[in-house]
């Protein structure tokens, strides 16, 4: 049977029950709208929260840690290799947190094509001196340009200029929390005490705010050179190498490789932040579940309306079959009805879903914790629209499947003789 005939019969049956059809389509529209709105908002929020941590976290961090040796002298004795040994009170051997042979490692990483960028760092414990009291904190020595390129550092510098950190010697960018406690302004000179007891004066060139209050209360940034001076160490002293990869998913494997080659600790982002991925996953799962539940409810609406329509149009179906329409044709007509409800409802749902996301995107959302965010976050991922569209068709197809099968099985003899 030609498609146009199927469509024209389906259309006239739809028109005959226009109001109910509308209700069914509005049900689909509503659920798709909510599906799109919910997912866009949830996933926008997810990206925001993940971004808070993940954007600022290196994919792999190379560092040295003070820890007890895994191999104790007794393990090297062949005679005891089949025995158990117990060593009490194992202490870490005295070792530095500096990465040995930094220059060679840096060159090797630069040649690795999987690496997107490298940013060295020095972690340094200090006390900020405010009058008579000392606030504990730490200063990160960073390569200003690399840090900005890899971790968008300038986005978090809320006052002052990031590049001054590089151009002005003995300068510091204070955490917002630290600055408030010290009542420091840009251009002021503050005093810190290093862990070796030396007093150093640093010029404030900016403030930064990460959104994580605990961090802003202790953390400050200085250039690598300044930090090396603070610590009184040589130019090759580096405690951390932060690496960003082209493909984040390879991080665990590459971290393992580096651990063996460079004989340092290597922490990959997946291991360091597994809780964030779990959180994102659960939030996404909830949004999908709610969206799909809404669609299934809409599907039941369509099922009901088609059932009613079939009951109503029993005579018409019987005569169509008597005049030569096969069960398959009748089935196709009702599936067409269901799918057009799904298609029209779904289409408007996508449009309204987009509108709703765009509206949410305009709602102001100002919070101290998130300096870069001005409105509610929305993720306009086209995948949501594709999934929503496909799902509206799939649910309506299944909602139409059983009523259509029932219609196709109607025995014209029973209807016609029953009169």
């Amino acid at each position: 049977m030609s498609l146009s005939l199927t469509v024209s019969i389906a259309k006239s049956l739809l028109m005959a029950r226009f109001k109910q059809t509308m209700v069914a389509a509005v049900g689909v529209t509503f659920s798709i709208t909510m599906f799109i709105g919910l997912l866009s908002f949830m996933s926008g929020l997810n990206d925001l929260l993940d971004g808070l941590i993940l954007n600022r976290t290196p994919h792999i961090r190379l560092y040295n840690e003070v820890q007890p040796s895994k191999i104790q002298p007794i393990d090297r004795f062949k005679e005891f290799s089949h025995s158990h040994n117990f060593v009490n009170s194992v202490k870490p051997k005295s070792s530095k947190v500096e990465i040995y042979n930094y220059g060679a490692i840096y060159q090797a990483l630069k040649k690795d094509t999987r690496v997107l960028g490298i940013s060295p760092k020095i972690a340094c414990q200090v006390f900020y001196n405010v009058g008579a009291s000392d606030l504990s904190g730490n200063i990160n020595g960073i390569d200003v340009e690399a840090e900005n390129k890899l971790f968008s550092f300038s986005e978090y510098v809320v006052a002052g200029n990031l590049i001054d950190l590089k151009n002005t010697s003995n300068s510091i960018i204070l955490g917002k929390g630290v600055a408030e406690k010290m009542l420091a302004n840009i251009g002021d000179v503050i005093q810190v005490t290093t862990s070796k007891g030396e007093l150093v004066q640093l010029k404030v060139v900016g403030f930064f705010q990460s959104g994580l209050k605990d961090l802003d209360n202790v953390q400050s940034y200085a250039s690598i050179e300044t930090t090396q001076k603070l610590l009184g160490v040589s130019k090759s002293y580096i405690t951390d190498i932060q690496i960003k990869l082209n493909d984040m998913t390879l991080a665990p494997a590459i971290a393992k490789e580096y651990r063996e080659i460079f004989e340092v600790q290597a922490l990959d982002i997946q291991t360091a932040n597994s809780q964030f991925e779990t959180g994102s996953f659960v939030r996404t799962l909830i949004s999908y579940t709610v969206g799909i539940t809404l669609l299934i409810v809409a599907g039941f609406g369509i099922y009901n309306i088609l059932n009613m329509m079939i009951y109503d149009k029993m005579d018409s179906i019987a005569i169509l079959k008597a005049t030569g329409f096969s069960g398959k044709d009748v089935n196709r007509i009702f599936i067409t009805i269901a799918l057009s409800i799904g298609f029209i409802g779904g289409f408007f749902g996508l449009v309204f879903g987009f509108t709703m996301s765009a509206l949410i995107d305009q709602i102001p959302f100002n919070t101290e914790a998130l300096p870069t965010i001005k409105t509610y976050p929305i993720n306009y991922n086209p995948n949501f629209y594709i999934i929503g569209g496909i799902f509206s068709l799939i649910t309506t197809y299944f909602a139409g499947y059983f009523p259509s099968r029932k219609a196709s099985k109607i025995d014209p003899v029973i209807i016609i003789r029953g009169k």
Partner: protein
Amino acid sequence: MKNKILEAKKIVKYFHDPMTIKVLNDIEFSINQGEFISIIGRSGCGKSTLLYILSTMDTDYEGELIIDGVSMSGKKEGDLAKVRNEKIGFVFQFHYLLNEFNVLKNVMLPGLKLGKFSAKEVEHRAYEKLRMLGIENEALKLPNQLSGGQKQRVAIARSLINDPLIIMGDEPTGNLDKKNSEIVFDIFQQLAIEFNQSLLIVTHDNEFAAKTNRIIEMEDGKIIRM
């Protein structure tokens, strides 16, 4: 020798509900091209049941049905629908027009389903049939705007649209008054004489039956006269 268009061979049919009853017993007859036949008998003698078997709508029977030289045994539902579409025109006691479509579209539907002609040609042919039955002026009205007699004539036009081998009628005049019954009979008569159309009509109306070429009388599931 005349052309056999439909042949029933030893058709037996049971009703199983509420208990097994033999409703048709060894029905055997054939219809030639151009014959105008009526089936008469008391209520419950199985004449309608027989008609639905002959029309291929009822497939639950024993025996063999041959239409246009092809056996209907073992054919699938889709194929039988095709046979009905192409070779059998049906007129029921009730008109069964689709209220969502106008008269013209109602007549056209089986033609569009057959797909032998383009939509335009089917429309032209539908107009021809309506004109023949004297209702071409009603073509664009909806069925519920027509009188009972007119509706039945639309139903006849619908049955003719694919130039069927045979027209089957199940009490086509049962719902009509005397005047309209006569009009419908005259149409059938005209089809049989002018167009050599074969017709098989189940009726209660002995007067109607008397005017047909051949009468098949049934009693208790058997043919007693033909």
